[in-house]
């Protein structure tokens, strides 16, 4: 096995689950997510130098996966599965707290740009800087999208009958 092959395999095992989860979250099904995953690492194999020199490899990979996703969605005119209730990935969810499922629906109602940055931050644990690098947007835009998303979710939570703080403590 050459050094490049070993490096690619290492990158795949380290970041593959992240890319797959990101793609699955955006596409709503695992089959398409796996195709995006393979395409992403094919792109990495073709540009190992870019991968090595990226300031954040995680952000670089998410950026590539995102481009592939956009291309696929445009080409195949796939409708993004907005409702996680019909998402096989999301179905393995939390049966303990019904508020969590309600929150999922609230997140799905957010504008796509806000939901994307929120997912990258809370689900994939990317920093604001990494998100900015992945999406090629200024860090201030990341910040304002997150603020807007959280404000909307908080508003939604306040509109519901049960106090949010009580629900999360159960």
């Amino acid at each position, binding site marked *: 096995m050459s050094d490049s092959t070993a490096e690619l395999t290492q990158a795949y095992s380290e970041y593959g689950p992240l890319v797959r989860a990101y793609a699955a979250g955006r596409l709503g099904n695992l089959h398409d997510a796996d195709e995006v995953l*393979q395409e992403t690492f*094919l792109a990495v194999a073709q540009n190992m130098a870019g991968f090595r020199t990226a300031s954040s490899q995680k952000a670089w990979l998410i950026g590539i996966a995102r481009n592939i996703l956009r291309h696929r969605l445009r080409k195949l005119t796939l409708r993004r599965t907005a409702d996680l209730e019909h998402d096989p990935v999301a179905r393995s969810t939390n049966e303990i707290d019904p508020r969590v499922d309600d929150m999922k629906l609230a997140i799905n109602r957010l504008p796509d740009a806000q939901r994307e940055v929120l997912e990258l931050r*809370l689900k994939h644990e990317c920093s604001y800087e990494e998100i900015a690098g992945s999406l090629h947007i200024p860090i201030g835009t990341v910040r304002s999208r997150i603020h807007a998303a959280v404000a909307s979710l908080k508003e939604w939570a306040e509109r519901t009958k049960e106090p949010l703080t009580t629900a999360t403590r159960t």
Partner: protein
Amino acid sequence: MNHETLERLLIDRRLGELTEDTEALLKEVLRLAPDTAPIAERIDATLELASRALRAAKSPAAPLPPLNSQSLAIAAKRPISSTALPGRFAIAAALILTFWLGGRMSSPTSISVSDRTPQLQITKAIDASPVNVWSLGQLAARSVQTRTSDSANIQWTSPIARPQLGAKS
């Protein structure tokens, strides 16, 4: 501090995106204004619930598929030595080469204006002709000749440097 700004700072603090100084200031604000505590609590609770909702679907049950053999084949064809050279080194090498070539080409070049300018050649032809006819063209040619007859050689030491007047020819 208005309510909106406070909420933004609380969100950034919860997500670990505040600088130490800002965080210390925010802590002081919260200490001095106890009525802001419920706001902070609601922000924390919202983010906690959103994290749980998003992470609930984090790990797909199916194991990661094996890496595509095509990717492996491409990677195998690209040894590290050929791809590891960062682009900035290549740019630096190109710049050095450019300056080196520029230095080699910078030997002074003399251009004799009086010999190279077509107008002056025509002027000479007119002056040499037996019929010294007055004309605008001749006047123009004479003015050029007057101006350039003193200027002699132009020293052009580099393509990017300003030309200098040299010794008279």
